[in-house]
Structures are given as C-alpha cells and as structure tokens.
C-alpha cells in the first residue's frame, strides 16, 4: 500500500450512529464505523442475520446511514449478486455493493452462495467479521472457532477441530483480491477496503474481530487482545493480490523478529481455559512452523 491512511486524514463523515445496539467493547462496532467510512455513501449493503443485524437497530430505527438489504442467512453473496444485477440493468456502474457477514454466515451456511458468486466473478466486496463463533445466538462453535475453544456447543473439552481457513478457500477461486485485517488495526482495514473498491470482480476481506462476551475478557481490552493475536502470529494480516501473497502492516513487521508466545494470548480469555499445556505447545509449534515459512520468503 502506498499512501497509508492515518487518524488525521480519515473522513469525518460518520455513517454509523452512536448509541447503537452493539455490546460494550464490540470489535465489530470499531470496524463497521471505519469500514463504512472507507466504503463511502455510494454503497448498498447486504447483511445476513448476525450481530450486525442487531447493531443496525430494530425497525423502524436504523443505526446506519447507508441503504441496507437484510437477507436470509445462507444467501448473502447471492443477494449481493441480485443487487449488482439490478444496478447493471439500470446502467449504474458507480454504486459499490458490499456484503458484510459474520463467520458463520460466511464460512458455514453462507459458503455455497459465496463460492458461487466468486466463481461468477461478481463485482462486490465481501467482508467477513470473524469473531470465531456464533455470537449473536449465544456463542456456539462455528467453522472458524479455533481448536480447543470453549463454546456453548463445545462446553467442557473445547472444539476438537481446527479453524477453517476461509481466506485460502476464497483465494482458491482465483479472485484478484483477498485480504485479512483486524479490528485492532482499523486503519489497515480502511486502506484495504479503499484498495478493494478500485478492483473489478469479487474482493474478500476477512477481519479478526474480538468479542468480549463470547471470548471471556474485560471489554476494555478489545484492541489489546486483537493486537496480541497478531503479535503472537496466530492471526496474520496479509493480502493475496493476483495470487501473490504478502504479509502487511503489523504482521509484515514481525518478519524475522521474535514473536510473543501464544500462551500470552490464550491466558487473557476464558474461552481457552480447557487448553492443556501439551495442546498449547502443539499450537506454538504450528505457529512457529508457519512463521519459519514466512521468514524464508
């Protein structure tokens, strides 16, 4: 990225009203505010059921100043396709169509429609805010819940399976832009959305989004924990542009550097309480191996 946005040149136009229904310390409320600034007013949003539905408010009051179509859980990317089809039919080539879904709506129930839309090359931005479980329904495991995490459907021993690597699945469709971001680095997300707007075809941005209620931490630490996930090398900020992978921002700065250990991150959240020493060691080894590959590049 050439010109990095700073807090000084971020647009002042606020598109999300204060006093919305998000929980205290919600990572989504950070990225939604900044993300909509990046998208701008000439945007139509498509949203499936998720915490975002709640954040946006109850009829007839809305917390968002952009037009938004609420759609069924499995249909987000197909609905975005429909909005695009109508805009094309009306010769509107300027309005941005952005789908904004949670990790369940993206990686589980929504993946068929998302895969179809990516294969068809639909000109939209799909933003997945990944808070690593079904938070809106009360913290049930999802495809992107990390291994070992306690949720209400993995209540005692934690989730047995690994986190689904959704960005890689989407990148395998051969689309021109896939990126990850974090709620703790909102300006990095801002720049990635601005970049995505200028690219034709499907764009996918996967945003790691801390959730105090679901992860079990004090709401004051949202930004700190999101950063810790990056600093430990557990969640990496990167872009895959025209099939070229590159680490970005805070993750890029970690190349060749000593990272914080994963247990430092795990001990901050009650959801990791079932992890044994051995499991933590295994995860640390996997992270070290992943970073050994990064460091070679």
């Amino acid at each position: 990225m050439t010109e990095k946005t700073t807090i000084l040149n971020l647009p002042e136009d606020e598109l999300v009203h204060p006093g919305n229904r998000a929980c205290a310390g919600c990572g989504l409320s950070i990225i939604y505010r900044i993300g909509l600034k990046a998208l701008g007013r000439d945007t139509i949003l498509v949203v499936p059921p998720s915490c975002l539905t709640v954040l946006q408010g109850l009829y007839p009051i809305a917390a968002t100043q952009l037009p938004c179509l609420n759609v069924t859980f499995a249909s987000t990317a197909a609905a975005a396709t429909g909005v695009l089809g109508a805009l094309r039919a009306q010769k509107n080539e300027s309005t941005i169509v952005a789908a904004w879904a949670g990790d369940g709506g993206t990686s589980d129930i929504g993946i068929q429609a998302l895969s179809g839309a990516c294969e068809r090359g639909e000109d939209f931005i799909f933003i997945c805010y990944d808070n690593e479980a079904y938070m809106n329904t009360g913290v049930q495991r999802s495809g992107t819940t990390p291994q070992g995490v306690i949720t209400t459907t993995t209540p005692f021993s934690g989730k047995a399976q690994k986190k689904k690597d959704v960005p890689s699945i989407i990148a395998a469709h051969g689309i021109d832009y896939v990126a990850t971001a974090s709620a703790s680095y909102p300006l990095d997300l801002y720049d990635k959305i601005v970049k995505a707007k200028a690219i034709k075809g499907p764009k996918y941005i996967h945003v790691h989004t801390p959730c105090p209620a679901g992860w079990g931490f004090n709401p004051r630490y949202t930004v700190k924990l999101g950063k810790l996930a990056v600093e430990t090398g557990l969640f990496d900020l990167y872009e895959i542009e025209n099939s070229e992978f590159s680490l970005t921002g805070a993750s890029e700065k970690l190349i060749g550097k000593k990272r914080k250990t994963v247990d430092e991150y795990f001990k901050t959240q009650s959801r990791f309480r079932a992890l044994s020493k051995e499991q933590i060691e295994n995860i640390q080894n996997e992270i070290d191996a992943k970073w050994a590959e990064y460091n070679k590049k």
Partner: protein
Amino acid sequence: MHIIESGNVAAANGVKLAKVQVIAAYPITPQTPLTEKLSEFVDAGEMDAQYIPVESEHSALSVCIAASSTGSRVFTATSANGLLYMNEQLHWAAGARLPIVMCVVNRGIGAPWTVWNDHQDAVSQRDTGWIQIYCCDHQQIIDTVLKAFYLAETVNVPVMVCYDGYILSHTYMPFEIPAQADVDKFLPPFKPDYALNPGQPANLNTVTLPDIRPDVRGNMAPGYMEIRHNLHTDMRDAIAVVADIDKKFAEVFGRNGNPYIEEYKCDDAEFVAICMGSLSYHLRDVVDILRKEGIPVGVMGLRLYRPFPDQAVRDALSARKGIIVFEKALSYGNQGALYADIKSALYCAENKPAVHNYILGLGGREIKTDHLVECLRNSCKQPKTIGDTPQWIGLKL
C-alpha cells in the same frame, strides 16, 4: 404471430415480452428448457436482461429478491425439489412484498425421486404468501406470465405461474405470441414504491418487534403482526384485482375472461368435476362421454388457487347436487388440499352439495380416460358426501 411450440417456450416468450431485467435460475427437470430458452434470448441479444446462472434455487430466488428490492423486474422458474429448496426465500419474498414472478413447472417431489408431473410441489407451498395461478394450455401460460407481472406489481405480492411438467412443458401446441406493441400497451414498466438507493437510504427487512413502535419523528410504524395482517388483506383484495387485470387483458388482446374458474358445460350441470391445471381439459372429454349417457355433468378448471376465490367457488358450486374434486396432491394424513378448501367455501352456502375427493396422477401415474369416466359416473350416481377419506384412481396395491 401464431407458432407451434412447447409450454416452456410459451413461458419464455412471455418473460421476453414482459421486458424482464434480471433473470436468475438453476436447472431442474422439467423447467430446464424454459431457462435455456431465456439464456438463448439474452445471449443472442434479443432480450436486454441480466441472466445470472446461480449455484442453487435458494440463490436464484435470493438474486430475484435483491434485484427486485433494487428496483428491477425479475423472473425465475423452478420445479419440485427446487421449489422446496426455495421455501425460506418464498416466505421472505412475500414478507418483503416483492413483485417477483416465477414459473413453477409442476413435478412430484422426492423421496423417492420422481421427475414426472403432479402438484405436490406448488400445493405444499400454498401458505408462503404467494399468489398461485394454474394454467391449462400454452396460450394460458404465455398470457398468464404477462398478467402475473401486472398483478404482482399492482398488489406487491409475488406470483407463481404453475403449469404441468411434461404434459404442458414439453408438449407442442399452437399459441399466439402477442405483438410487443400490444404488450407494452397492457403492461407498464415496473415502478417500485421504493428501491435500494444510496440517495435515500433505508434498512429493509430488519428485526421487527412484536408491538408497534414509533420512528425517530414519533410516527408509529407497524409491528410484525400488522405487517402480516396487511399481506393477508392485500392478498384477499388481489382477488378483485385478478378480475380487473383479466378484463384489461381481454380489451387489448381479445381473449380470456375466466379469471378464477374456467367452466365447460356447466350451465345446466347438476354435477361438477373440479381440478387444477391441464387435467381440466382432459376431463372435458370425460364430460362429453357422460353427457352422451344423459348425465348432466360439467367440469371446472380452478385457475386462481391462492388467494382462494371462495365467493366465486361458492357461486359456481353451491346450487349443484354433487362436486367431484380431482387432485394431483395430498395433505398427508388428511385429504386433498383443494377438497378441503372447496368444502370450507361451501360450508356457509345454503345448499350444500355432496363433495367427493379423488387423488390421482401422483408422480406421473397415467391418468386414463376410462378411469375418469368410471369414477365420475359413480360419483354422479351417489350424490352423497361419503366421508373425507379420498378415493385413489389408478392405484395398484
């Protein structure tokens, strides 16, 4: 222009003449030739529409829901399990009050797999808030597609145009393709009350509370229950609108005039066979045979199934001795769904005719004229209601 073509091609020509802007579809037998024809029209530049080949029926209707919400005229088509896969979206489209038109090429549903015709697919979706109209021949298919857009956009309720798989979809019949200029006279361009628009933002279909609630200016907005009540009331009002549109259609094109029920030899009939779809034309032969035997019988094809035109049904049937309901669908564990509706409509009539219920043709089981003659003759000879248990035609246990 008159041509000899299949029912699917008749439907496709109706969609083309309606100047649909966005089409989304997923292939399923026996709907497939309809959507193939539409993609031909679009690819050849004969039709200025976006054709979106989606990855499922769920997504097909999702595309239509979103494109309609963004202000475009939309169309999709499906059959059988494809329609069932749309179920959640059917409710969503009606709840969101979107004037979507969909052809349902009627086919039995699995398990076990069948690709042949019956009406279980559409009948099982009767409570989704969609208008359902059944066609008896190819001319009705193309005409009904045009009228369906007018109707949907007048009452803001989506419309299913149903026609029998294979029996109508794949057989060839002569029909007239109306001139585009006449269609343009009949069907105005789609002008939605609201379409998604960054210049006038709105949050559509969001969470709605059980009770009414004021907006930021203090104006009361409806709650969930008011929204449902309005859908129901508008569906009931649509019954009259169907007749108005039929009249307007007849003025421009010089045909039609049976918006609810198409009658054959019913003027003096003491007994009336009633059913939906192409079977009613098959039953005309049966009526002719029985008339020769001196049995005063006629047949009615019910065109509008939802909203149910109960007053028209009552007016048409209550003075008869016996009503014989033939159905290609069943409410398992009870009776034919149409039979129940007709009995319900007749309940408050002064004279209550006997009502018989026959189930036939499920999963494409051949419907033989001889069987129909025998069953209808028997029913006319015993004009008493003999309990609600349906009798099965052509069953080989």
